[in-house]
């Protein structure tokens, strides 16, 4: 295009490399620190481990219950995610394809949910979930996760269904398919790119969710991963097992990293198209 001087090319690379190091290094430090002893952590923070302390991971997994927290999180996030997608897709399909009284009203009703910060609902939600006897239950948390994921997912998928051609749907009806068959056999498969985007977007949101479980789950044995980690950090002040906490962080971060690197294109697209549409 235009001439970039050698000096500015070098300085550009310096800035970019510098920021990459700042982003990556804390994580590399965390990974190798997770294999050190507590003494090594305290007296030589930068040094690599003398001997690999795999026991840190065993303690994090069992004694600090990271394994249990991981299981709890999966028990909540998997059904919540699948139900969010199916419930939103059904609603979005109807909103995008049918004319009926109150359609616009319903669409804007769902849309308005994106305006409100969750903190405003926190106290009434806590009291409601208590009245429903669902505090400290996985199904309570699942229902709340679904409800708070609906506005954006329905908004996004309604837009997506509107872009799909109607011909295939119509020919399926000509062939005698009932509306349910049309939706599940024809429309859902066609909508899969949109469903994947929303799947990634909601998965990350639910996996990393912190405020909702903090308020709705107080029973330690039912903690979500984010809560469990924070709880471990607070406990360190009197238990002093720092190396296990580094190991716990690594257990949580490395899978995220692997999933991210594998699907980075879809994840970035999912999050940014999600964000830009909203």
């Amino acid at each position: 295009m235009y001439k970039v001087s050698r000096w500015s090319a070098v300085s550009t690379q310096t800035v970019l490399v510098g920021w990459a190091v700042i982003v990556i290094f804390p994580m590399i430090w965390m990974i190798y620190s997770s294999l050190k002893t507590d003494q090594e952590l305290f007296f030589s923070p930068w040094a690599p481990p003398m001997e690999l302390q795999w026991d840190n991971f065993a303690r994090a997994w069992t004694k600090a219950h990271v394994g249990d927290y991981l299981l709890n999180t999966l028990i909540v996030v998997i059904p919540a995610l699948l139900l969010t997608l199916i419930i939103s897709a059904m609603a979005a399909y109807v909103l995008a394809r049918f004319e009926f009284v109150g359609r616009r009203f319903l669409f804007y009703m769902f849309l308005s949910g994106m305006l409100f910060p969750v903190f405003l609902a926190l106290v009434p939600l806590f009291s409601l979930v208590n009245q429903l006897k669902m505090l400290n239950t996985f199904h309570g948390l699942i229902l709340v996760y679904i409800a708070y994921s609906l506005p954006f997912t329905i908004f996004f998928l309604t837009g997506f269904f509107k872009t799909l051609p109607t011909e295939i749907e119509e020919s399926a009806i000509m062939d005698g398919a009932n509306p349910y068959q049309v939706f599940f056999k024809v429309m859902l498969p066609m909508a899969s790119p949109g469903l994947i985007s929303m799947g990634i977007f909601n998965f990350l949101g639910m996996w990393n969710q912190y405020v909702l479980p903090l308020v709705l789950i107080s029973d330690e044995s039912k903690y979500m991963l984010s809560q469990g980690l924070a709880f471990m950090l607070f406990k360190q002040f009197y238990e002093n097992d720092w190396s296990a906490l580094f190991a716990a962080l690594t257990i949580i971060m490395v899978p995220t990293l692997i999933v991210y690197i594998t699907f980075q294109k879809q994840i970035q697209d999912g999050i940014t198209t999600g964000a830009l549409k909203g």
Partner: protein
Amino acid sequence: MRRNKYGIILPFLAPAIILYSLFVIYPYSQAMYVAFTKWKGLRKSPRFVGLDNFEKMLGDDKFWNALSNNLIYLFVLPIVTLGFALFMAFMISQKVRFNNFYRVTYFFPQVMSVVAIGILWSFVYHPTIGIFSSLLKAVGIKNPPVWLGDPDTALWSIVAVTVWQSAGFFMVIFMAGMLSIPKSLYEAAALDGAGRGSTFFRITFPLLWENTRSSLVFITVIAMDMFGITFTMTQGGPDRSTDVLATLLYEHAFLHSRFGYATSIAMVYFIIVIVLTLLIFRVTRRETVEF
């Protein structure tokens, strides 16, 4: 085709409407009432007190302190994060070497759990096990600050973590906009002898209005929230120097069972977000350039 359309419309909408009304609409509408009540915990019931909570807020130093911390974030984060993100997006979209590696790397903190980030950085900042202070000692600074333990540095330490986490996200948003700018515009500018600086300010930035506007709204929401990172790193301390409205209202609601007062703080929080969002849309409203 649409003969018995209600046979599909009703059952398809019902689950969404039921869940949404019960867990979203009902709590939000109840909040509009709870903010004007005194409500001391689940066993009691809310009692209407009019504007008492808001009057109390006016004289509450903790409230003003938390709000002013939010205002600092609202002022600093957009300038630093968006400025830096824009700068990097422009650099990377110039087809520098390894641009894909940079894009993937910078974005990663965005997918990490905010709690994991908070803990990782409390380690980095830690006076004995942390790498940051020992690095400073190694280059000759004898008494580096106790980053998160000192009211003068804690807030800025959190600012740095927030920039670390979100700069890559905003960079990708700006890059999406930059990619849609036609090459011919750049070629024309190059023919006219424009350098990198004037190309950026005359062509790239003005054509990124849509992306800038959504970025401003997101960073406003982030600066008003700050709950996860604050709660894991400092819990609002030391000496309330990092307290924000979200941590303050959480404390009132779930540590002291002041449900009414907490909700009235949440109401103020909500009004600020809405007003700022509307303001951003007003101020940045321009004719969108069609290519």
